[in-house]
């Protein structure tokens, strides 16, 4: 019986619920040393000298290394995986990023030296003895400030701190549409900087085997093969065959564990130097100043509408903060994962977007759950709401009037993407009905009677997932293909091991993939084992990001199963003395069509490994590998409705309702999908009302450097969520699946901000920047109240 579509409880839960998970910091290697990394306390400073003599002599210290030591040994800089070109055709500025800073530090937390000791306590104590002579220099942390001619330069050879000045779309068509528009709506907004904060801090253990010359790196990564490629080929120059990267149980990623980080290279290199394993585990305060951050855009947007309130054109100008160095995926986030999404769910015929990416003295910024798409959705759904307000049209009605119709697919947007499927009217209808959108006015009046300001907000979204067709992204500047791999090993008695290039760090692949394989091969789910996260075991693959695991990784598994079944048919045909073309495979059995003569998968597998009676021209074994390169992105979509109440006396906000209706295409495990939506919503709500990474503009100090200062969503900050799904299957992968991991984080910030602005509309408020904390709301309310009070 199939379990596809059933809420199968997760196979990985038992080990996590009993404390038997194996995260990187749970691993200890014999004779292991501990690394403590000294980090810059300054946002910008020269390194005029480092004296580590006293530290090197401290008890238990085995070595102290600096950036110059690594450079002298030929260690390269951390590479960037994308090359974006400016609108004038010039390549982006790509300054070097040494694992340990040399000569100059560029953000608070920039690693400067590593102390390696017999115990962590000894290494940490000795770090106090390292004398670093810093020459402090002025810093810039704000992306708009960084472009000003007077701004301090992050790199002396990057004028204006400008990494690239990119554009997409037809400016002339946009300008023409604006010239004939009946109305133009404009908005300036900020997309707040976020710290991803997976609950497991990053960790890495490097190990060197003297007898074989092989290295192993255990690391908290979403994509071990990518780390092996980047670190092996570009940083440490270790051939792949001599480098194994293991990403065991990983405690959340949300994008922040995609990238190749300095610490991975440091411990691996040091393990080779010292011939002993070297372990590093981030303290949370280190995570705040060394994990790649997310978002951080400053944007001006204009929407042109005709007399029927149809969208004519959209014009967007964004300044995106790259931080002090280019992280692995960074350049593609505010460009190809942002500008290409600006059509949203609407057939706006002309769109133009330009993005200036700038260096600042802050932690590098890269993909964080949603990655570009939350920024695109936020500005689009805010400007649509603002247009509705200015035109006096209900926001749901304005959206309905403008949606791409369900019969218009495939739909080619003016910003490169071709949507394969979707049904935006239906998901909006589902969300607004479930949320009783129509009854909001009554609830607003009731709240007013209680002295509360109540508002409701809608956001629709589209995202490009299933990242990504290699040829397409290659032409856009990706330096790697983004296909996925799978190997299916059918064992002699018919149980199956699946080696997948996808990586689970909470997504439940061991369960979903097992459901998929058990269904297709007609075997019990207990007979399927999923292996991931170890380059020594799995074929080369790209890991998990961009909601790609099922759409791309799952399809690779399907393709590998197809090969297993095709070979099995040859074996079964031989055993059953039938023509191969007459063999059908279903429910775990190879059957001669129209007869009851059959062989089970187990019998066929045993024959493949004990080929005494076997087709002459066929090789033994039943072990197949497939690579799948998607033909297109997938396009999940949906509609969210948020309802809030604000206490005008305190600015305190309560989310009284949050309703989601998503289209993820076909679903294998609805329970896991719901969990993905919940988590995304929590992060989106966190961005909207709680979270904001703050740097001091004068000193460049990170002010939100711990959980005491950075407001993580807690259980009593969040509502229960009301979810539903509607499936328009993806047309270009065999599973019809789209991806669900990022939706919540993409749609929630706009829905919630729209609800907040709706609540404050009676005061004349037209926009509130995120995060809408009680303090910010209180100030906004006070500012807008005072003229009224004076009257």
């Amino acid at each position: 019986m199939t379990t596809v579509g059933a809420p199968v409880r997760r196979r990985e839960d038992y080990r996590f619920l009993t404390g038997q998970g194996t995260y990187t910091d749970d691993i200890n290697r014999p004779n292991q040393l501990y690394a403590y990394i000294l980090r810059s306390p300054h946002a910008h400073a020269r390194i005029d000298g480092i004296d580590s003599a006293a530290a090197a002599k401290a008890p238990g210290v085995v070595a102290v290394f600096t950036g110059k030591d690594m450079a002298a040994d030929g260690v390269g800089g951390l590479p960037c995986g994308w090359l974006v070109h400016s609108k004038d055709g010039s390549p982006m500025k790509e300054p070097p990023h040494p694992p340990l800073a040399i000569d100059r530090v560029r953000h608070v937390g920039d690693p400067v030296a590593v102390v390696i000791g017999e115990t962590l306590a000894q290494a940490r104590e000795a770090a106090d003895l390292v004398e670093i002579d810093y020459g402090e220099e002025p810093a810039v942390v704000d992306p708009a400030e960084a472009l000003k001619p007077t701004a301090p330069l992050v790199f002396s050879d990057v004028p204006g701190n400008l990494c690239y000045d990119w554009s997409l779309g037809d400016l002339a068509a946009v300008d023409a549409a604006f010239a004939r528009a009946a109305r133009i709506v404009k908005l300036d907004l900020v997309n707040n900087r976020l710290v991803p904060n997976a609950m497991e801090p990053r960790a890495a253990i490097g190990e060197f085997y003297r007898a074989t010359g092989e290295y192993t790196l255990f690391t908290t990564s979403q994509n071990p093969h990518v780390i092996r490629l980047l670190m092996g080929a570009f940083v440490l120059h270790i051939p792949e065959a001599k480098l194994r990267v293991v990403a065991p149980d990983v405690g959340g990623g949300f994008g922040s564990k995609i990238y190749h980080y300095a610490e991975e290279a440091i411990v691996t290199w040091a393990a080779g130097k010292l011939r002993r394993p070297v372990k590093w585990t981030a303290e949370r305060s280190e995570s705040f100043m060394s994990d790649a951050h997310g978002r951080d855009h400053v944007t001006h947007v204009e929407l042109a509408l005709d007399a029927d309130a149809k969208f004519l054109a959209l014009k967007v100008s964004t300044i995106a903060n790259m931080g002090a160095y280019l992280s692995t995926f960074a350049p593609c986030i505010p460009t190809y994962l942002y500008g290409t999404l600006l059509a949203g769910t609407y057939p706006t015929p002309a769109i133009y977007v330009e993005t200036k990416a700038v260096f600042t003295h802050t932690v590098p910024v890269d993909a964080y759950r949603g990655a570009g798409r939350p920024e695109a959705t936020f500005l689009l759904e805010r400007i649509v709401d603002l247009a509705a307000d200015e035109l006096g049209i209900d926001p749901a009605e304005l959206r309905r009037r403008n949606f791409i119709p369900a019969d218009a697919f495939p739909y080619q947007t003016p910003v490169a993407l071709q949507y394969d499927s979707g049904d935006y009217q239906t998901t909006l209808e589902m969300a607004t009905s479930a949320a009783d959108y129509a009854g909001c006015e009554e609830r607003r009046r009731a709240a007013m009677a209680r002295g509360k300001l109540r508002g409701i907000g809608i956001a629709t979204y589209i995202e490009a997932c299933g990242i990504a067709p290699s040829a397409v992204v290659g032409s856009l500047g990706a330096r790697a293909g983004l296909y996925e791999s799978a190997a299916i090993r059918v064992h002699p008695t018919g149980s199956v091991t699946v080696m997948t290039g996808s990586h689970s760090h909470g997504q439940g692949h061991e369960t979903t993939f097992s459901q998929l394989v058990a269904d297709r091969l007609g075997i019990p789910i207990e007979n399927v084992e999923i292996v991931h996260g170890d380059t020594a075991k799995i074929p080369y693959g790209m890991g998990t990001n961009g909601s790609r695991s099922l759409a791309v990784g799952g399809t690779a598994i399907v393709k590998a199963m197809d090969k297993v079944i095709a070979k099995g048919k040859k074996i079964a045909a031989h055993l059953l003395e039938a023509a191969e073309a007459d063999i059908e495979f279903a429910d775990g059995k190879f059957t001669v069509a129209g007869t009851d003569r059959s062989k089970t998968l187990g019998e066929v597998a045993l024959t493949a490994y004990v080929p005494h009676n076997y087709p002459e021209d066929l090789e033994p074994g039943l072990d197949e590998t497939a690579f799948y390169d998607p033909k297109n992105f997938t396009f999940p979509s949906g509609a969210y409705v948020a309802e809030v109440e604000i206490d005008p006396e305190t600015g305190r906000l309560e989310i009284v309702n949050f309703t989601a209706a998503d289209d993820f295409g076909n679903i294998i495990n609805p329970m896991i999908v719901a969990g993905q939506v919940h988590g995304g919503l929590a992060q989106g709500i966190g961005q909207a009302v709680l979270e904001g990474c703050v740097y001091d503009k004068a000193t460049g100090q990170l002010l939100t450097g711990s959980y005491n200062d950075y407001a993580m969503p807690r259980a009593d900050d969040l509502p229960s969520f009301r979810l539903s799904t509607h499936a328009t299957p993806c047309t270009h992968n065999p599973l019809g699946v789209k991806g669900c991991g990022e939706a919540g984080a993409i749609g929630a910030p706009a829905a919630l901000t729209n609800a907040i602005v709706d609540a404050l509309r009676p005061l004349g408020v037209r926009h509130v920047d995120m995060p809408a904390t009680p303090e910010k709301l209180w100030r906004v309310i006070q500012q807008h109240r005072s003229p009224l009070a004076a009257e």
Partner: protein
Amino acid sequence: MQKTVSLTVNGRPVSATVEGRTLLVQLLREQLGLTGTHVGCDTSQCGACVVHVDGEAVKSCTLLALQAEGRSVLTIEGVATGDTLHPMQEAFRNNHALQCGFCTPGMVMSALDLVKNNPNPTEREVREYLEGNLCRCTGYHTIVLAILEGAAVMRGEAPPANVHGAAAE
């Protein structure tokens, strides 16, 4: 300065030599190999390290190992009976109340402490009690459901209808 500390962990008497500054969580993870108790922050905010000391929930990053002298510590490894999950662990599984699993041990230990003190909590009480435990994966939605279910089963009641209709595989 090294000292010997003797305590009971998951019902088993243990002794270890620790420094004065060694935290209980370090003793558990690094010396006793009980790596189910996790460290997710350095400001006693995240709750991934919650254990029970003499029956009370404690963030084991806030207690020195020496302060556990003579006391009885229960960690996540000691919650199940043999291979049989505790009803609270089972409820977490039924409700998909864990994703990456990193906060999970602390969540379960906190949930057990909540139910001990308040056997029949409301949803609001569960949410407020969880203030000291951070989860970045679930949005807490299913954790709250799991704790309500676990509490019901621990009271001897039939579990509430499962929101997912979760199926055993």
